[in-house]
């Protein structure tokens, strides 16, 4: 059964979404649906709005200053724009991985325990269990279990990025947003993180922004192509990369521009 005709209802719906930075319109009437427990890749040339869209899904754009939006994004039936939205709750449900690994300058343990300490109020033993489970989930537990109190900044780039993912899944989010998560990593580390992304999709909905088309082809189930703030085409990754419907998409993925 291919993902497109799966019976799963979309978990994220973007509806007529416009976004302005001051007077500049960065997103134009975007409509898209993201299915649960799949990897959705967002591709497009620099400045096409792909990161902006990603940051709209956990409302990190609110930090950018003069940002106004129109339209709505609905996550699991709950609209996230409008009055009375609980940001803490939203960001607990929608985690984000950044371009450069950004572990806090704390120990490995404290990094993973950060979210649970904020949101869950666990006992000491329960907290340890969550940390173990999260580190296991990203394949770090075996290596790290004997040095949980080492500074997180002493880890390699790949380990740091894994740790940042562990930090997110410690609060059991529904959605993981990844903003070019491999752009600061070498090819081997990239390979490992992609492997991890494929493993994680059995439990989480993953939206990944990437400038690397090969990466989109390797990890994603569906791909959305953006250009100048508009969603040009979205569909099964295989289809987008072999038989795109639009000429613009084809030009981009075959490298004729971008």
């Amino acid at each position, binding site marked *: 059964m291919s993902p497109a005709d799966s019976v799963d209802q979309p978990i994220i719906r973007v509806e007529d979404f416009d976004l302005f930075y001051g007077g500049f319109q960065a997103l134009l009437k975007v409509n898209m649906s993201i299915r649960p427990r799949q990897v959705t890749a967002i591709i497009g040339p620099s400045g096409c709005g792909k990161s902006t869209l990603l940051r709209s899904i956990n409302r990190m754009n609110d930090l950018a200053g003069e940002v106004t939006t129109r339209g709505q994004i609905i996550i699991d039936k709950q609209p996230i724009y409008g009055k009375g939205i609980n940001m803490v*709750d939203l960001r607990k449900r929608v985690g984000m991985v950044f371009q450069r690994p*950004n572990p806090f300058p704390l120990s490995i343990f404290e990094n993973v325990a950060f979210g649970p300490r904020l949101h869950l109020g666990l006992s000491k033993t329960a907290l340890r269990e969550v940390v173990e489970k999260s580190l296991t989930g990203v394949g770090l537990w075996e290596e790290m279990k004997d040095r949980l109190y080492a500074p997180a900044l002493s880890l390699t780039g790949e380990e740091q990025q894994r740790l940042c993912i562990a930090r997110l899944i410690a609060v059991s989010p529904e959605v993981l947003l990844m903003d070019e998560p491999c752009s600061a990593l070498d090819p081997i580390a990239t390979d490992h993180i992609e492997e991890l992304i494929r493993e994680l999709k059995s439990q989480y909905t993953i939206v990944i922004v990437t400038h690397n088309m090969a990466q989109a082809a390797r990890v994603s189930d569906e791909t959305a192509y953006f250009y100048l703030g508009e969603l040009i085409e979205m569909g099964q990754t295989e289809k987008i990369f072999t038989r795109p419907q639009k000429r613009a998409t084809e030009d981009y993925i075959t490298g004729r521009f971008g």
Partner: protein
Amino acid sequence: MKSVRRIWNRIVEFVIEKAIFLAGILSIVFVVLIFVFLLKEGLSLFKEYSPLAFLFGTKWYPISHPPSFGIVPLLLGSVVVTLGSIVIAVPLGVGAAIYVGEVAPVWLREILKATVEFLAAIPSIVLGFIGLVTLVPLVKQVFHLQTGLTAISGSIMLAFMAMPTIVSMMEDALRAVPSSYRYGAIALGATRWQTIWRVMLPAASSGMLAAVMLGIGRVIGETMAVMMITGNAAGIPTSLMQPVRTMTATIAAEMGEAVQGSDHYFSLFAIGIVLFIITFAINLTAAFFINRRSKA
């Protein structure tokens, strides 16, 4: 013609190079000279007077017969006033730095920072004078004391003088924390306060400790304001509500009357050595913390 120009250029290069070298080396020479002079004069005291009696003596009677040069009361005076001012200045400074660096809107941040730094531009004698006519009567009234010329008055006054150093250095330390930490915390659902408390402050802690150390250095070396408002009684302080005399105030007050070349004169230099060692240690500690921050 060409060769004349070349020779001329070479002379200019040579002169400028040497002049810059001299300027650079002079600052070191001056520091060394000052230190040597201080040591020579200060150590002369110990030809006649036991170093132990100086360091551990509890009586400072420089003009009695025989004189007594015990610096414990002065040392304690400095320590009490300094600790008092740090206890006041650090919480205020941390609060102000967080507000200026993290919370205040940009336009207000600039105004606040400039204002705090302007505090540093007020001459200490002016602050001391203002303290004398406003703070001292207030302290007397509030705590029901016989005199307001007490350690606590000095502490409050010095806290204000340490604020510019503490606030602006702490704000710099907070500003130096990579914003990726902030975004990471917010993306995990931390509120603004949780982000500051759990991520920004720990990340900036080295720089903030350095700020406290430099604040202490500023306070312990301050002279005029404390001399005017702490009462200058060289007894061993048992509370903040008593008059105290600091090391700096002692030097300033007695240097004029001490006969040059007398033990009294040398003893003031010996106090100078003690002060020098203390401030040197404090600055070294601060440098250590700053260094650690830049490495992390």
